[in-house]
Every structure is written in C-alpha cells, then in structure tokens.
C-alpha cells in the first residue's frame, strides 16, 4: 500500500517537519520529503498547519522592527557597545590590572578616612592609570559626557527647572540621597540630569553649562566593593588584624584621567564614585572638582 502512512518509507519525523517548515533543508532533501508527505496525509496536514503557523508568527509584531528605538534603549546600547569594543583590550591587560588594583588598594588604604587629598601640582603627582572597576567607571563617565554634552535639544532627561523632582528621582534610583553642587560661583549653571546604566547599577549624570555654552558633567554612582585578596591582607604592615573596614579600601584621592574621549577628575568616597568631566584644562577641572567635593 503506497499511501499507508505507517509504511516505514512514508513515515515523517517531527524533526524533518521542523526542518522543512523552517527552511533548513537543501532542495534535494526538500523534494524527497515532499514526495513522502504526499503519501502521508496526516503528516501533510501537520506540515501545512505548522507552515501557516510559522508564516503567521513571522508577521507577528513586525511593525516593531521598523519602529523608532526609544532613546533610553539606544543610550544603553551605546554604552554596552563601548564596553565590548574594549573587551579585547581587557583580555590582554586583565592580569596586569589585578596587580595595579592591589597597588592602588594599598595606596588608598594608607590614606584612611581623611577624605580625598588634593595633589600638589607637581608634574607626576597623582596622574596614573586607574585600576579595575574604577577604570571602567571613569571611562563610562567620559563616554557619557561625549555622548550627551553636544546634545542641543535633549542634553538632559530632567531639566534644572524641576530640580526637586530630579533629585528625588535620581536619589531613589541610586539608592542614596544625592545633592546637586552649586557651581555658579565658578560660572556654571545646572542644566539638569539623567539616569544612566553602569556596570554596577544605576548611575547619574548632572550637566552644567557656562555662559559661553561650555559644558561639564558630574557622573556618579556606587562602585563595586573591591575586596582585598588574602595576599594583599597579609602583605600589609600590621597584618590582618589591623585591616580597616572595607569602606576604607574604597576611598581615593582626586585623580586626573585623560585616557577616555574627554578628560576629568575622579574620586571615590564611601563606596561612591564621582567623576567631573569636561573639555577644559586640568587646572580648570581641578578647581571645579574641588568645588563639587566641598559641597557633597
């Protein structure tokens, strides 16, 4: 009986039907399968139904493919892309970064809870590559500045006119009460702020502008705790017993950075990172960073 679906030569497996419906067969396989389906009405009906189903699904929400991408998603994608571009670099430098991180951890610990130290303006003072999560943080700050500072129509999500709302909103998202520094004495007015994704959670960006339209941004957010390795603990004078609480590991002096697209100063305090960024001279940036630090 040539048309008996149970005849071994006429049987069609689900896998074969899927491959046919999903267009995964080459022309020869396809012809052979279609010939068998012609002799197996039940499998033929399944094929037809699954094909209609696939065609309907292919059309489902198709308009979303052409819809404009919401700005928040585009922003998050740009940041993620930027991280990935640097991935290759990180694979090469990962080992070295761990060593640098230890060195800086020790440096920060020794500063204890005195708060950021402002560098003497010597040519080599406190100008070194930041390590680990800090390096990511300052790079993100720099990229965020580069992306938003040139914006004419939408430089911020919430403008300075709604400063109270801006602060409540960003404080809630960053899970810490924030303050906006007043930089008018330095000639900069608040433009507003926005929320950004960071590697350790939400980040905020405040934007300021002077009379000539030059912009600086303050980028801030929680920094991941960088636990000291056992080796680091043992190496520290005084031994493990003298190790201060981890919070002390996460303090830093003001440091200048210029590896990213836009230079700036950054510092870490109580597990929170700050970066003041702008296309200004090092001295101008330092003065603004100090003004910000005094008020926070």
């Amino acid at each position: 009986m040539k048309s008996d679906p149970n005849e071994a030569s006429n049987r069609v497996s689900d896998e074969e039907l899927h491959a046919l419906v999903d267009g995964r067969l080459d022309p020869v396989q396809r012809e052979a399968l279609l010939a068998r389906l012609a002799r197996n009405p039940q499998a033929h009906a399944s094929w037809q139904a699954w094909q209609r189903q696939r065609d309907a699904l292919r059309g489902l929400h198709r308009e979303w493919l052409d819809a404009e991408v919401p700005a928040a998603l585009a922003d998050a994608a740009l940041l993620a892309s930027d991280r990935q571009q640097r991935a290759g670099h990180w694979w090469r430098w990962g080992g070295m970064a761990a060593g640098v991180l230890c060195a800086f951890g020790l440096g920060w610990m020794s500063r204890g809870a005195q708060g950021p130290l402002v560098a003497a303006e010597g040519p080599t003072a406190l100008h070194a590559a930041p390590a680990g999560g800090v390096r990511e943080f300052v790079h993100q700050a720099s990229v965020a500045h580069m992306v938003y500072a040139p914006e004419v129509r939408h430089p911020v999500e919430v403008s300075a006119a709604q400063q109270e709302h801006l602060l409540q909103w960003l404080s809630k998202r960053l899970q810490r009460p924030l303050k906006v520094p007043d930089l008018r004495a330095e000639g900069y007015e608040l433009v507003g702020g926005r929320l950004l994704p960071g590697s350790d959670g939400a980040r905020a960006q405040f934007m300021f502008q002077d009379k000539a339209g030059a912009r600086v941004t303050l980028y801030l957010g929680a920094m991941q705790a960088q636990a000291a390795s056992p080796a680091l603990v043992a190496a520290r004078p005084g031994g493990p017993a003298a190790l201060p609480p981890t919070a002390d590991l996460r303090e830093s002096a003001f440091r200048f950075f210029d590896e990213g697209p836009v230079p700036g100063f950054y510092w870490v305090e109580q597990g929170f990172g700050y970066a003041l960024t702008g296309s200004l001279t090092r001295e101008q940036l330092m003065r603004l960073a100090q003004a910000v630090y005094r008020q926070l």
Partner: protein
Amino acid sequence: MSRQSIVDHIPGLRRYARALTADAWAADDLVQDTLERACGKWRLWLVGSDLRAWLFTLMHNIYANQVRGAVRRARHATLVELEAHAAELVAPRDAADLELDLQRCLMRLPEDQRAVLLLVTLEDMAYADVARVLGVPIGTVMSRLSRARSRLRELMEGGAAPARDPASGLGEQDPAVPVLRLMKQAGTMP
C-alpha cells in the same frame, strides 16, 4: 562598527520581547535590563562570537528570573484575578483579530516552549543557537518545538478557549505576563 551592531539588534530584541511577554511596557523594560546586563557582563562576551545569540541569552536569563519570581508571588497573591483574566482568551471575532488571537494563544504555551518557538520563527535562529541561548540540549529544543507547534495548532484550530476548570489553579499553561501585568495594576510593582 561594534558600537553600531548592538544598536542594530535592538529592534529584533524588542519585537521578540514583545511577543514573549505580550506587553509593550514589559518588553521595553526587558530590553533595557538586557542592555544593562550586557554592560555589566561584557567581559563574558568574546569578540567575534555571535553577538545576537549572546544578547538573547542575557535576555532569556533575565526573563526566566522574572517569570519565576512572578509565579512565586502570584501563588500567594493573584490566583483569583488570573482566573478572571482567562475569560479574555476567546476565539477571534474576525480576521483583524488574528494577531491578537495568535499572541493570546502563544501566552497559553508554557514559557519555555514559547521561547523556543519564537526564537525559531520570529528570529529564524538555528536550532543549535536556540539550544545555546536557552542553555538546554538540542534534543530538548526539538521536543519543545514539537510540543509548542502541536499545542499552538490545537489552540488556534480548536477555538482559542477550550473549556477550563476554574478550580484548577495555576496550570502549566498559565501565561506568566498576565501575572506581571496584573501585579502592576495592583500596584505591587513600580
């Protein structure tokens, strides 16, 4: 180049999320979470590997967590409301409702079957890639695909609302996102 390519994947991610969750807001939240996760996990992405598959993997993991959490909470909170919601699952009135009906029937598939079916059809993803994205063997992908297609056919052809025992509680076909949506309406989620 790489910078552009993540952006290029957003429309596909949004559409998939939309079909997976049946909720436009939940879809964009899911994409946003996915991109934030991509930011944090970028070290785990190897240059030159399949960026799309990686992004879908992140999205699937986030979604699976959300569904688990929502179902857990729903067991305590919204059983009754969920039953009321099931009344919306009725046969289409005319051809214009086909898409709506298709989405509703999709939501009656178990979440893992729905994900397989959507990755294979909407995304036209290779079976092996679907297995990698979902973190299951390819045999599981194929069996889920069979069950999804057979079940969806029944739902679409047999009238979209077969009799349903109101006392049955949360069965395997209970859609996860109506749960999410109900919880949002109830004000338990931001």
